[in-house]
């Protein structure tokens, strides 16, 4: 993993070494994924549907067991200690939390209660928690309006905000964000990324995000990995990736310097596959 721009002397908050993941004893999904997140950086994982982004994040946060998946090879280290045998709860206590893809709000709890559960592992008193609650409401004013509604009834985007807000409530050192922009209005997408940068800059929170909105992701991230069929096929500084011709073509939709229109895309077009 060296020689590609990451300063190896830098402190790593997270390092994933060559992990393999199998679902249901038979479905091999990750075939040796390695990646690193330096402290205080934002790292993005890109990749097509089914490439294994979600699986990677769940492997890190130890949520795979709940889906009958398991890490069969490789190691995962968070702040230098191995965490692959820990429970999800211990990891959260250590400061690493995941925002799950597809919202996963607690339907029968109100929005506010949802946010409060995010502070489950915190021990720093009600006042601090209340303060953070205000912070979340300031980030997402829409949530304040709906704070007493059951999370099951609010709109998709509102649920997404709740899920993100809930993670913020745990005051983590590192957040694993799985498709944070999904279903959010454009304005909000930008706000989310602003929040990410703000936390990153002001509170030194590190981020690992799986994101389909490549444009945004590469704009805000420091470093990026491209995943395909359970393998890392390309990685590099975000800037470098943005200028990579293939990325431009297939992830950013910029052909010859101009943005393509969706109307003009042709069927049966050539697809880039690094692992042909």
């Amino acid at each position, binding site marked *: 993993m060296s020689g590609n721009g990451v300063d190896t002397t830098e402190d790593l908050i997270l390092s994933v070494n060559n992990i393999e993941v199998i679902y249901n004893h038979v479905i091999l999904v990750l075939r040796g994924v390695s990646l690193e997140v330096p402290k205080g950086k934002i790292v993005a994982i890109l990749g097509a549907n089914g490439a294994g982004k979600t699986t990677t994040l769940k492997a890190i946060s130890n949520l795979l067991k709940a889906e009958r998946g398991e890490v069969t090879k490789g190691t995962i280290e968070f702040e230098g200690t191995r965490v692959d045998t820990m429970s999800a709860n211990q990891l959260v206590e250590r400061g690493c939390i995941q925002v799950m893809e597809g*919202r996963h709000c607690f339907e029968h709890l109100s929005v506010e209660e949802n946010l409060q559960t995010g502070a489950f592992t915190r021990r720093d008193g009600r006042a601090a928690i209340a303060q953070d609650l205000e912070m979340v409401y300031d980030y997402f004013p829409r949530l304040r309006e709906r704070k007493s509604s059951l999370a099951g009834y609010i709109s998709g985007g509102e649920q997404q905000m709740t899920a993100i807000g809930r993670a913020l409530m745990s005051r983590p050192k590192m957040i694993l964000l799985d498709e944070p922009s999904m279903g959010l209005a454009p304005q909000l997408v930008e706000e989310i990324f602003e929040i990410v940068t703000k936390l990153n800059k002001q509170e030194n929170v590190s981020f690992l995000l799986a994101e389909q909105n490549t444009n945004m992701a590469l704009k805000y991230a420091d470093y990026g990995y491209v995943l395909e069929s359970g393998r890392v096929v390309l990685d590099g500084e975000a800037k470098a990736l943005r200028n990579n011709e293939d990325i431009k073509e297939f992830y950013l939709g910029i052909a010859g310097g101009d943005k393509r*229109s969706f109307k003009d895309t042709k069927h049966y077009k050539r697809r880039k596959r690094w692992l042909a």
Partner: protein
Amino acid sequence: MNVAAKDIAKGQNILEIDGISLSFGGVKAIRDVSFDVKKGEIRAIIGPNGAGKTSMLNVINGFYHPQEGTINYKGAKRHDMRPYVAATQGIARTFQNVALFAGMSTLDNIMSGRMLKMKVSLPWHFIRFGPAEREELEHRERVEHIIDFLEIQAIRRTPVGRLPYGLQKRVELGRALAMEPELLLLDEPMAGMNLEEKEDMSRYILDVNDQFGTTIALIEHDMGVVMDLSDRVLVLDYGEKIADGTPDEIKNNQNVIDAYLGVAH
């Protein structure tokens, strides 16, 4: 259907929504919204989160019953009804939080879209030989066309619960298409897709619209997609209609920029 035919058809309204209001307890999800959808067009609905877009689709296909207002569908005033009636009238739908039948294979999911078109009665299904099998094969063939069309041959037999999100969205579209709807409602069909996949999806939507003449109402947050695909755009905010017009008009509407698009666009 060729382009000229499409233009002619556009004259008629397939759906007219007039003065719809919908509330849940104290929450007013939709406030007095009126708009129409013309036959053969692609109609986008956009708006900030919680604006009432999904609720609007729910009203159209009978899942929510508005407290006020009228709906005219294909020229007739529609009354409150159970959602399956909407399906029989040719309205199909995909969902924001994928609502596939997770335990069934892709093939079965799409086949289930043909449910309304299958007529052979129960007793024949006991023995399967004869009419039941014939009908099954007939519809299977159509479904295979859709599978080819959406390029999901490889996952035909996979239970959809195991598919990655993007593919699930595609299967869902397939299921809706299998219903051969006149009006297709798409709720964020491209959420969670990367550009390449969005391009594919756009292609499918355009092709459906083009080849089958299906009218489409779609909700989407990717402005690129909305502006490129749609013929007209309806903008909701806090349950109210704040703008309605062609993509170009919308792009430059100050209200819309303030409430939804933000500065960048």
